[in-house]
């Protein structure tokens, strides 16, 4: 188009023994060069990273020799490497990215040099440097991360650059925007990955090394138990096994070649084994496409075959025969990585996209809780407020902290799912609010790599999360809301029921914290000489029966402990008990819902202290060395309306020391 500004870009795509260069003027590649590096040249370097200076000199020497002045370029774009999981797009290379490329966050690979070469050349010539759609692109949804084995979450590692470039091209050819379409894109190369793109995001794809169909040189998914047997057979070392799976698998394993055109010729020459193997590979690809169709609920705008094998008609026709019923099949043979990289850079230079910032320095924490409770709502508010005070910025453009909040809506399976999601996302820290979340943390997070702060749980030591109050000795820190039952009775029950002979106790047997509180009540009863009547509940609905039982047993008061029944019981469920008896409540929200009185830990303080522990951990302190916070400023809380209903006359001394309960706030329903 006349008048359109011409951008000149240098594109660098390092491979293990070569560096491919492209010089682009807008979309047109005006110069392409492959700089080949001999084994002798590369063997001097212990690590891929150390090849930087050598490769950079080669690149600059080529450009100078070819008469290019780097000062006339507008940007340098490099192939992205094995970085942290990230969204798709064009990223500005910065030193945080360089740091991760240096250590090889997800492994060492020649592509790790792409970013640093772009950065180095860009720095010297004051040019912006970018990477585009690295293999680490990860847009999985939580449901896609389950492998079926808790120790091995599924990861998104695929041919992101070509798949996304081809998807964009197809969308353009269809006259649509990529974010309007549902596509299945099968990259058919030395490795094969089949991606489901929902509105432009790759929500499901097979791992390029270990899942999906077999490919020219990779085994893809193989039967697991026979593989385990092979691994432990003593016949092979790890390197050999890996070689059988990657490099020596697929067509290489069956036919001794990774050249699909050669196999096609064998088939045409009548080789029946070659035909069966090649047809099997095509069949597996079609099956994988079918699986992606399910991920998209069958709503598919097109199925796209791309990569070098998309040139092999025999393979594509076999695939098309099986998947044509799902939708139209388009072929975009070959791959143009240099072009895809250039286009990513161009979109930013033209202002069509904003270059994303790699967020290695940005911390990420996950917060989860068991249900929609106002206490948990307040906990989140307190935690966020404390984090803000410490200088963390979140939910704003220049944030340095990402907070992922998950409400499990009372579903234990959901809690398990959330923890799996948090682990897969490799968060810097997880905060479990409340006792049910802490219990789940004990089962699924204790002794894992990620630090966990159990904020406002019953008691981390008693619950088995920590070995001592001086420090958990593991990956967990926390704050405890536990107030000893003896203290609760002395301060919040005895002044109201001075001559206590029989106390009813609601208990959820099997729930550790509920049983511990019952034991404590029994100890106090033995010391003080009153009797205890226990009623076992499973759900809040059981409280009505409890009230009847307590009436028949002529109890004078009832203890409602801190457990999952009391916590979720609403006013109606509590009413039979709290309107019939003076109640000693271990949770403030029970008092708010009609309970009489209690000795209550300062919830806000507990949550802020818990957030303080999280801050210390984010700043580098080991969680296991941080003391459990368990000395909250407890206060006596009374519900005057309930006292009136029960016809109780409150002693003046009690009234002076007690705090009237605050009204109930709304709940956090918005947290996904």
């Amino acid at each position, binding site marked *: 188009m006349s008048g359109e500004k011409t951008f000149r870009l240098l594109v660098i795509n390092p491979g293990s023994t070569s560096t491919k260069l492209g010089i682009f003027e807008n979309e047109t590649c005006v110069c392409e060069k492959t700089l080949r590096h001999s084994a002798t040249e590369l063997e001097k370097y212990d690590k891929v*990273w150390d090849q*930087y*200076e050598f490769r*950079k000199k080669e690149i600059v020497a080529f450009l100078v020799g070819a008469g290019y002045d780097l000062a006339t370029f507008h940007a340098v774009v490099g192939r992205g490497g094995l970085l942290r999981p990230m969204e798709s797009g064009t990223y500005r290379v910065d*030193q945080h990215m*360089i*740091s991760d490329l*240096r*250590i090889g966050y997800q492994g060492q690979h020649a592509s790790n040099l792409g970013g*640093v070469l772009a*950065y*180095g*050349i860009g*720095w*010297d010539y*004051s040019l912006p440097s970018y990477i585009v759609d690295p293999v680490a692109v990860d847009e999985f949804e939580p449901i896609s991360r389950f492998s079926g084995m808790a120790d091995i979450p599924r990861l998104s590692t695929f041919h992101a650059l070509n798949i996304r470039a081809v998807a964009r091209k197809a969308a353009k050819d269809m006259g649509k925007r990529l974010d309007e379409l549902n596509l299945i894109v099968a990259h058919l190369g030395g490795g094969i990955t089949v991606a489901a793109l929902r509105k432009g995001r790759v929500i499901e794809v097979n791992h390029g090394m270990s899942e999906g169909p077999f490919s020219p040189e990779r085994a893809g998914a193989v039967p697991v138990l026979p593989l385990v047997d092979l691994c432990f057979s003593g016949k092979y070392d790890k390197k050999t096994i890996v070689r059988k799976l990657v490099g020596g698998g697929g067509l290489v394993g069956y036919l001794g070649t990774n050249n699909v055109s050669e196999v096609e010729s064998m088939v045409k020459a009548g080789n029946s084994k070659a035909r069966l193997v090649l047809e099997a590979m095509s069949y597996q690809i079609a099956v994988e496409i079918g699986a992606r169709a399910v991920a998209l609920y069958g709503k598919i705008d097109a199925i796209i075959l791309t990569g070098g094998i998309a040139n092999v008609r025999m393979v594509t026709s076999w695939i098309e025969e099986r998947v044509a019923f799902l939708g139209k099949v388009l072929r975009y043979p070959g791959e143009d990585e240099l072009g895809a990289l250039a286009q990513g850079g161009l979109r930013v230079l033209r202002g069509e996209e904003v270059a994303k910032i790699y967020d290695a320095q940005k911390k990420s924490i996950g917060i989860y809780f068991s249900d929609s409770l106002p206490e948990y709502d307040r906990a989140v508010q307190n935690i966020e407020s404390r984090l803000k005070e410490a200088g963390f910025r979140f939910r704003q453009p220049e944030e340095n902290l990402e907070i992922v909040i998950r409400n499990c809506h009372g579903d234990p399976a959901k809690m398990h799912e959330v923890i799996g999601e948090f682990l897969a996302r490799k968060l810097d820290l997880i905060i479990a609010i409340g006792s049910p979340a802490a219990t789940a943390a004990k089962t699924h997070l204790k002794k894992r790599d990620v630090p966990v702060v159990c904020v406002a749980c019953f008691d981390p030591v008693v619950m088995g999360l920590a070995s001592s109050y001086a420090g958990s000795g593991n990956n967990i820190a926390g704050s405890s809301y536990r107030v000893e039952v003896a203290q609760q009775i002395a301060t919040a029950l005895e002044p109201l029921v001075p001559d206590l002979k029989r106390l009813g106790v609601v208990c959820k047997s099997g729930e550790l914290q509920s049983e511990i509180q019952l034991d404590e009540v029994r100890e106090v009863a033995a010391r003080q000489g009153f009797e205890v009547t226990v009623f076992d509940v499973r759900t809040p609905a059981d409280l009505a029966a409890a009230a009847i039982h307590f009436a028949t047993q002529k109890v004078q008061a009832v203890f409602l402990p801190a457990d999952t029944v009391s916590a979720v019981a609403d006013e109606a469920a509590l009413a039979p008990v709290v309107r019939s008896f003076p109640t000693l409540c271990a949770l403030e929200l029970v008092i708010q819902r009609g309970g009489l009185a209690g000795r209550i830990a300062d919830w806000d303080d507990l949550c802020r202290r818990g957030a303080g522990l999280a801050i210390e951990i984010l700043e580098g302190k080991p969680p296991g060395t941080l003391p459990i916070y368990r000395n909250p400023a407890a206060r006596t809380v009374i519900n005057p309306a309930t006292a009136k209903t029960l016809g109780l006359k409150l002693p003046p001394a009690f009234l002076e020391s007690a705090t009237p309960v605050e009204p109930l706030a709304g709940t956090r329903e918005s947290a996904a």
Partner: protein
Amino acid sequence: METFDVIRQGGLEQLIFCSDEAVGLKAVVAIHNTRLGPAIGGVRMLDYRSQDEVLHDAIDLAQEMTMRAALADCDLGGGAAIIWGAPESKSEALFRSFGRTIQRLGGQFLATMEVGTDSRDLRHIRRETGYVYALPEAFGGIADPTEMTAQGVMHGILATAKVVFGKAGLDGVTCLVQGAGRLGSNLVKLLAAAKAKLLITDRNYDKIKNIQDAYPDITMVRPEEVKTTRCDILVPCALGNLVDRNGVERLRCKVIAGGASNIFPDVETGDLVHKAGIIYTPHVVIDAGELIQADHELKNLSKTLLERAVAEIYARTVTLLETAREAKEAPLRTAMRLAWDRLTAIGRIGQRHSLLEAPR
């Protein structure tokens, strides 16, 4: 400007032009002041745009060296040598030809390394003349001169931190090192060992990359962002004016202390920096390590004594900054005054320092 006007305005004693077309040598040697002893100066090799620039730099460097030697309690005068040419055009023949020029000066000028030359080049010069000093130990010196300079600058930075921040040590102090060359990279090691919070910049990425590979926590700063980057101490170790009169208010540092020459275009800019509340510790006071090494080599003193003399930069810096504070003037002005006082006092002795015997 006429050459004699250049000499007069620069306050030079001599200005020597050298040319050897056969080897592509074009050079000048500026001798500024020999009241304290023979003129010592670095041999700089750069591809200047004009002869005026060459002379301008030669005079500046020679004047600074006079001041540096006077303040460092050395028995040396100030000079400078500039080989006009791209460092890529270096050759043995070029440096040997220049070495013969120095030899012909009979000890009036003593050569050391400067920007654009390294110990290998100086070794070529030394094949023609003995008037070469402060080479690394491997080449006959008594210490590594870059290390001595870095140590001196480090002592100066520590002293400045003590006077300005009232802090012993640099733990947690943010230091932005501008320039990752010989001096800058040596300083990074010392600053990192002192637990300073480090930032670094250089126009050449490869130099920074090597440093960042060794110190992954170091923060990189784009060259164009140096002036506006907030830090406690800006440590200039690169060529060129750091700040002009218009740029003073953009500076976001509290202290400037490093080893780079000519960071201000003139003394008045230094005054403006001072008025802006930024303490500039004059580089001529703290980057004298190499000079002190040459002085010790001339006097056949040991490396132990050399290190002790370099460590005295700490006390000298504290005295200078406190004197400046009392006098309510920029430390650069104080340094100039103190240097001039010494030159005047020794100059009154009335006997010019005898030239050294030519060591071959």
